[in-house]
């Protein structure tokens, strides 16, 4: 009986070790996650900037709207898909960010405070205030499950018009708040397209959100999120503070929604309760489900889908030359009916959404490629 632990330890490297944080095998294989994500972000950013240089003003606004929605959908999909907390109140969180942005910008403008830093400061305020709102909702949410959580967040989503009318002195009721629009800096030249500048700002916000979330998802915290989603009891046994993880997930998700809301408000330089109806919260959920729940790539698809939902109806009625009455009925409703059906079909038949489909196709292509290589190699 002289066997000591040192004799046993190197014999069988457990497969679990590779999954543990800080396990050398995993780190060597993957390289630095942060650097890889940073490289992808810089590449995508450069590509989009080059593309925006070729686009017309309206198309640039579309790019900007996709980027604004991407901030929201990315945070939302992490909460719903990775942490299993179904929030129907993200439209209200977006509104919180948008109104904070407007109020901050107005206050700065009235005091004649100007400078490049006012925009990031206002957006930061939007993020901070919305994160605080997310903390309040999240504290309640951590005690609620399934349909109860969905019901409470749905009640939150109905709140926007009510709050703006009750505190009409601050939020100016139905009219909403206008604030000074962003203008391109003089260094870019006098004739620089303003929409392009807006698209760049929105792009920066979206890339920052995606970069932070991509790292978060692959971190220890990201694994905790999934563990809590899959089995709360097992997660607690493994030493994960379940409630704290859920609250934190809500705060992170709300912060993203606040940033998205702030950028969204910036694009039109105005906020009004009509922009954040109950439907918006449902649309956000629809977008991340069709895009692919829990996948950041799916959030990109979702953001594109949301902009398409806003812009398709106009296109359709324009090109089909329908009678005025019919066009008015189809406007908005046709696209919504189609997307709603797609949502149901995705949920029933293809829970991976678009991102899952793309992954499956890519895997099949790679497998086919590998097979072909394997059959050819003996000939050479």
């Amino acid at each position, binding site marked *: 009986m002289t066997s000591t632990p040192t004799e046993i330890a190197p014999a069988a490297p457990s497969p679990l070790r590779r999954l543990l944080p800080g396990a050398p095998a995993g780190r060597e294989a993957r390289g630095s996650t942060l650097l890889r994500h940073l490289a992808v972000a810089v590449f995508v950013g450069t590509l989009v900037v080059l593309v925006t240089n070729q686009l017309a003003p309206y198309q640039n606004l579309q790019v900007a709207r996709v980027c604004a929605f991407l901030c929201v959908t990315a945070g939302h999909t992490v909460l*719903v898909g990775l942490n*299993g907390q*179904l929030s*129907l109140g993200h439209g209200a969180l977006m509104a919180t960010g948008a109104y904070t942005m407007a109020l901050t910008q107005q206050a700065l403008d009235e005091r004649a405070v100007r400078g490049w830093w006012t925009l990031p400061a206002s957006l930061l305020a939007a993020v901070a205030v919305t994160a605080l709102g997310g903390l309040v909702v999240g504290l*309640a949410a951590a*005690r*609620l499950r*399934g*349909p*109860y959580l*969905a*019901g*409470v967040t*749905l*009640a*939150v989503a*109905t*709140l926007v*018009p*009510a*709050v703006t*009318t*009750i505190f009409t002195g601050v939020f100016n009721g139905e009219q909403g708040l206008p604030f000074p629009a962003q203008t391109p800096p003089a260094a870019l030249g006098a004739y620089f397209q303003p929409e392009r500048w807006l698209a760049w700002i929105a792009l920066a916000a979206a890339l920052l959100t995606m970069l932070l979330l991509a790292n978060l998802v692959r971190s220890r915290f990201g694994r905790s999120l999934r563990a809590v989603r899959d089995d709360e*009891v097992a997660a607690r046994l493994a030493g994960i503070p379940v409630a704290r993880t859920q609250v934190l997930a809500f705060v992170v998700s709300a912060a993203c929604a606040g940033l998205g809301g702030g950028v969204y408000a910036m694009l039109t330089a105005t906020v009004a309760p009509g922009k954040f109806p*109950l439907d918006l919260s*449902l649309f956000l*959920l*629809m977008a991340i*489900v069709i895009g692919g729940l829990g996948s950041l790539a799916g959030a990109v698809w979702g953001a594109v889908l949301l902009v398409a939902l806003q812009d398709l109806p106009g296109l359709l009625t324009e090109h089909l030359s329908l009678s005025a*009455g019919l066009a*008015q*009925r*189809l406007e*908005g*409703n*046709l696209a*919504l*009916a189609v*997307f*709603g*059906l797609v*949502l*149901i079909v995705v*949920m*029933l038949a293809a*829970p991976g959404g678009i991102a899952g489909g793309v992954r499956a196709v890519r895997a099949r292509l790679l497998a086919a490629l590998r097979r072909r290589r394997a059959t050819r190699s003996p000939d050479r």
Partner: protein
Amino acid sequence: MERFWFLTFDGLASGAVYAAFALALVLIWRAARVVNFAQGAMAVATAYVGYAVVSATGSYWLGLAAAILSGLALGALVERLLMRFAGPGGPLNQVIVALGLVLVIQAMLGMVFGNDYRPAPAPFDTDALTIGGVAALSPYDLWVLGSALTVVALLALLFTRTPVGLRMRAAAFAPEVSRLLGVSVGRMLTLGWALAAGVGALAGMLVVPTGLGLHSHAMDLVFVVAFTAAVVGGLDSPVGAVVGGLLVGLILSYVTGYLGPDTTPLAVLVLLLAVLLVRPGGLFSAARARHV
């Protein structure tokens, strides 16, 4: 004081509708452990059918019957075609499918009937009768209260006094054992959904004339209020749904009467959170086994 009595009667009348609607939610929850987030949209769709029949035939009662029948059919269809297949994916999937159904129904209604508010006349006088100098209930309020309470009584009879009711309760309580004993659990589930949607259709017909009229979003806030009522009473308890509905109706009536109509959503949220954080099972919940 006069205002207080008026608000009390008004609250009871709207509370009766919330009670009927909450009852529909409770019926499905008991049968299938799903909160039907599409209940509001389904009720609006059947109300559109009902009022189409009303304007075609001129008879409110034919319209009411058509609405309830289409509600029964819609409920059965939704269960057979959608929820049955969403079930295995967990409650999150069922909620999302129901929300998808909301979007589809609202879009379809907008396409078929247009986006404007349509008038929805009430079958009785909506002016309040005065009793002893106090404005009390209107004939329409009495009809709403009476029909909602009748439905509650009928459902109670169905569940406690008939073989079908017994089978439905057994199928919900212990599906495996019921199946072994020869109960067709799937059919009971369909029946539960149909009944719930029928009750929802009745509630829709009752509530629409009191609002701005028929519109695809007419029930959005009503659904949230009814959900609150169901939670206040406890999602498992039909009696709780009725009491919760009346209670929420009263509270909201006082809040809107004394603080203004814009405060309603805020009051709903506060009420919902208060109940969920203090007594998550609702006022009528039985002692529950500890969740491991």
